């Protein structure tokens, strides 16, 4: 409730700031300031309400799964539990061992000492291949990042900031994987391949776009370049080395990726149909209506449907959420790549932007692709992944108790 209250208060402040400092423009002949402000409030309230609802569902799930157990612990217990939660799979038994020994330590001060020291051990277990391998990996990553900026900028002007950001983020993930002995899990090879292909396609299309229209670089300033790099690197990370907390169900990634493919193919068909001169004007109207529906409700469906299906089939909130996340990481880079590809094709034919406006510079398509594909879709769709996953939470299987797991992993 505190979270909900904070979000509602932040929303109210944002609304007041916007309507007082940057009043919305309107036509006084047909509209009034009050009407425009009311409509703006509604427009702002719907996504806010969705996000608050989704956040409350996540908190509720976390509370019944983890929160109650954490709440029953004393501060040293919570500290150590948090530290050992970062351990990779094959070191988990050591984390459980430390937690179990802490249960035997009596007295506030000794418990703090034991927890702090154990937490330090949990965070500093030897890296894969030893410290030299970690230092070498870090060095290679740092050198690659330092060399990438000037080299890429020389080859594709305007792409240097993206190259540095993307390589830096991916390199940081590699270093972290080596440091924490995290193995590449590839929970589902085919969906992983598709997401990786989507990320590669997104990067390739950005390069092609900037080579075709170097002036478009002004739509990829450092902030946008960093954002694009963060989204693509994040998609790659989840696809290749998703943490256990994102779920381990094997069906969920397939469902999510299937929904994303349907979403992206649907976009392609509608874009092609809307620019097909063989279709009659009446048919064009129908296509444009369908395209509008797809544009606004597609992002909702692509997150909601796989989350609902996976959550129901797997009878688990987390599985549903996992499917929704996979739908997101597959659809975002693919939609972005498709947007740029089709924008280039259509601009060459009619000199117009892909969806909105004619006569604008071709480079605006890059800004539009960044906004609509990578910001709008997750902003609108992500809460529906949570809602879809939460529809049948009461049928979820009770989580396996850590003690049962521990007993099941006895080593000779």
């Amino acid at each position, binding site marked *: 409730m505190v979270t909900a209250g904070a979000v509602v208060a932040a929303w109210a402040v944002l609304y007041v700031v916007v309507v007082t400092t940057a009043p919305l423009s309107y036509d006084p002949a047909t509209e009034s300031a009050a009407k425009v402000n009311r409509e703006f409030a509604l427009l702002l309230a719907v996504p806010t309400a969705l996000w608050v609802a989704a956040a409350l569902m996540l908190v509720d799930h976390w509370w019944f799964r983890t929160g109650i157990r954490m709440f029953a612990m004393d501060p040293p217990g919570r500290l150590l539990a948090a530290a050992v939660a970062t351990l990779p799979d094959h*070191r988990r*038994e*050591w984390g*459980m*061992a*430390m*937690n*179990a*020994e802490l*249960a*035997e*330590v009596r007295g506030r001060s000794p418990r703090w*000492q*034991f927890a*702090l*020291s*154990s937490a*330090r*051990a*949990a965070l*500093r*277990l*030897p890296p894969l291949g030893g410290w030299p391998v970690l230092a070498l990996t870090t060095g290679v990553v740092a050198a690659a990042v330092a060399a990438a900026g000037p080299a890429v900028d020389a080859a594709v002007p305007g792409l240097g900031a993206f190259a540095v950001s993307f390589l830096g983020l991916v390199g940081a993930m590699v270093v972290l994987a080596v440091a924490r002995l995290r193995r590449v899990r590839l929970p589902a090879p085919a969906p992983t391949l598709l997401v990786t292909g989507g990320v590669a396609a997104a990067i390739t299309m950005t390069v092609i776009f900037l080579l075709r229209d170097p002036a478009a670089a002004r739509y990829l300033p450092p902030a946008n370049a960093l954002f694009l790099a963060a989204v693509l690197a994040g998609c790659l990370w989840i696809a290749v080395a998703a943490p256990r907390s994102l779920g381990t169900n094997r069906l969920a990634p397939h469902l999510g990726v299937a929904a994303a493919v349907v979403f992206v193919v649907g976009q392609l068909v509608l874009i092609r149909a809307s620019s097909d001169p063989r279709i009659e004007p009446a048919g064009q109207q129908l296509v444009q209506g369908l395209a509008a529906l797809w544009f606004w409700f597609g992002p909702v469906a692509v997150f909601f449907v796989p989350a609902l299906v996976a959550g129901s089939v797997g009878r688990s909130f987390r599985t549903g959420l996992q499917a929704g996340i996979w739908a997101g990481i597959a659809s975002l880079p693919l939609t972005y790549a498709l947007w740029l590809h089709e924008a280039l094709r259509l601009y060459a034919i009619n000199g117009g932007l892909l969806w909105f406006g004619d006569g604008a510079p071709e480079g605006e398509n890059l800004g539009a692709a960044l906004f609509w594909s990578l910001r709008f879709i997750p902003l609108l769709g992500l809460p529906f992944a949570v809602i879809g996953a939460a529809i049948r939470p009461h049928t979820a299987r009770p989580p396996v108790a*850590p*003690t049962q797991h*521990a*007993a099941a*992993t*006895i*080593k*000779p």
Partner: protein
Amino acid sequence: MVLALAEKPTAWRYGYQLCQQLGLKPGSLYPILVRLADRGLLETTWDTDVPAGRPPRHLYRLTGSGGALATELAAAPARRPHLKVRSQGA
């Protein structure tokens, strides 16, 4: 650590018990135990016979190779062991 575990080679020890016996903090003890186990010198198991509400505890003792290393260390105390284990407190 190896010598302490070799005092009663068949006995299983708890981590906290070893901390107290050797005067080590867990921040030093557990990395050593992890390295010993990684090298096949230490075997581990879980003690599930614990009071209700308590988690199972991890138990440790030397393997045959660990016992051989302990014998080697005991026989040549002046020579540096080839297994690097740190023993300073954390």
